[in-house]
């Protein structure tokens, strides 16, 4: 069914003068102006600003991303400095973009000794698509998506992160670990 727009609206003399509507528009924009002008003051003074002023003064002002946010994947580092990863290679297989490269190393596996760990663990963020499949595939709670998304750089080669760059203490990842446990428990892995 065709939809017709009635373009022959009879306007009163008052409406046709456009003055009240113009004044309304001016009022709206100047209200926004003052609202934003004073709304940003708390930020410059270093305090929390009104939540309703949703514009973020970006590089200086950062927002807390929700815990479900998928930033760059990082490796969990145990308290003793070793990665939690056992170099099983599941993330490497799960990765749809083939950006993970793992070379395992192993030892005798006696008490208080690590049996397997990654000798080389590279993630090329120039290729990574931030899907989170590696995190989902990991059986050891070793790889997690962080909230860091500021990884753009001028040299593509520098985007290949090595193990040392990827390691993050496990204490910093507690919230995300909790979240993934809740999340993936639904499918009963």
């Amino acid at each position, binding site marked *: 069914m065709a939809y017709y727009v009635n373009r022959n609206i009879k306007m009163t003399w008052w409406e046709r003068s456009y003055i009240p509507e*113009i004044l309304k*528009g*001016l009022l*709206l*924009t*100047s209200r*926004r*102006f003052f609202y*934003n*002008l004073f709304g940003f003051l708390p930020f410059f003074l270093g305090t929390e600003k009104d939540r309703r*002023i*949703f*514009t973020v*003064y*970006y590089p200086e002002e950062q927002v807390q991303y929700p815990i479900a946010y998928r930033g760059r994947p990082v490796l969990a580092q145990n308290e003793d400095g070793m990665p939690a990863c056992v170099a099983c290679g599941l993330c490497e297989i799960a990765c749809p973009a083939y950006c993970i490269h793992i070379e395992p190393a192993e030892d005798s596996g006696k008490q208080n000794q690590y049996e397997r760990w990654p000798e080389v663990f590279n993630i090329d963020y120039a290729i990574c698509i931030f899907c989170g499949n590696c995190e989902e595939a990991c059986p050891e709670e070793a790889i997690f998506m962080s909230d860091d998304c500021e990884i753009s750089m001028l040299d593509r080669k520098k985007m290949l992160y090595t193990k040392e760059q990827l390691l993050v203490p496990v204490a910093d990842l507690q919230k995300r670990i909790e979240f993934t446990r809740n999340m993936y428990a639904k499918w009963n892995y």
Partner: protein
Amino acid sequence: MWVDLIITLVKIFFILGVTVAFFAPILTWVERKQSALMQDRIGANRADILGFTALGLFHIIADALKMFTKEDFIPDGANKVLHTIAPIIALVPALLTFAVVPFGGQYTLFGKEVNLVISDLDVGLLFVFAIASLATYGYVIAGWSSNNNWSLLGSMRTASQMISYEVTMGLTIIGVLMVFGTMKLTEIGAIQEDFLRWGIFLQPLGFFMFFTASIAENKRIPFDAPEAESELVAGYFTEYSGIKFGMFFMAEFIEMVTIGAIMTILFFGAWHIPFLTTATLLSWFDFLGTTGSNLVVMLIHVGVFFAKVVLFIWIQMIVRWTLPRFRYDQIMNLGWKILLPLSLANILVTGLVILALN
């Protein structure tokens, strides 16, 4: 004689300093920031000196550097001479107008009468209009000499729009002249010492019509058909780059200041504070001696004057960022069918009232 010369030079430098060196650059920043705040944006703030951004104020310097270092491009088939002088013709009248605009009253400094106006012409108001109309030549020549269809269309629209609205402006001014009985801008300013004799109360309709017409003269949005980005690329300055483009831009901003100043003088009490006569102010600062009190009052008056100018500039800015562009025929309709009869009626009513009061 030397003293007079020095005083005049100081006034000229003050006006040039305020308009060219202060208002024109600051207004580019204000326009960016104000529009940003109105639209929930942040606005330009990335230009920094040693990591210090100063809310984007350094963008002024970046802009100036960019304009001075860019290639000065003259298109093939353009008339080189006219293409070069067009921006000058557009910019100079905007500055010249300030020659007759008083930014303060008369003060006795060191036993000498100082009149805060560069040249106190008897036909000051006429001079303003004569010079302001000259700017049209700059725009028309700019469009014609560029050898570009869009530019030519833009300059033709400029010409027609200027002609249409200059009529309204002139006729509105007649009402003001009838009320104040003088063309001398300093006298018009002095008369408005009495708050109830401000132009906006004597000529309320004239105030709005003059404001509308002067925005149209300045070719800013609601009336920016001559440079309509979505229709004509950039109108008459499509083919300009570098500092020539910057001169058109500066002309626009200086014209904004001019409009603010003329509006202030004609309708908004010039340099006077409501209900505070110059004599009262002088008596407050009597303990400073004649020169001291005059100096203080002069500074107050100049400050008040420019505060009012800033208010009018601010109104022009919010209008520019609130309203959409009028269609070309709507502009002509507004100019010839609404504002022109209204200004004629304004003259009639003003005349009748003056006749009745006498």
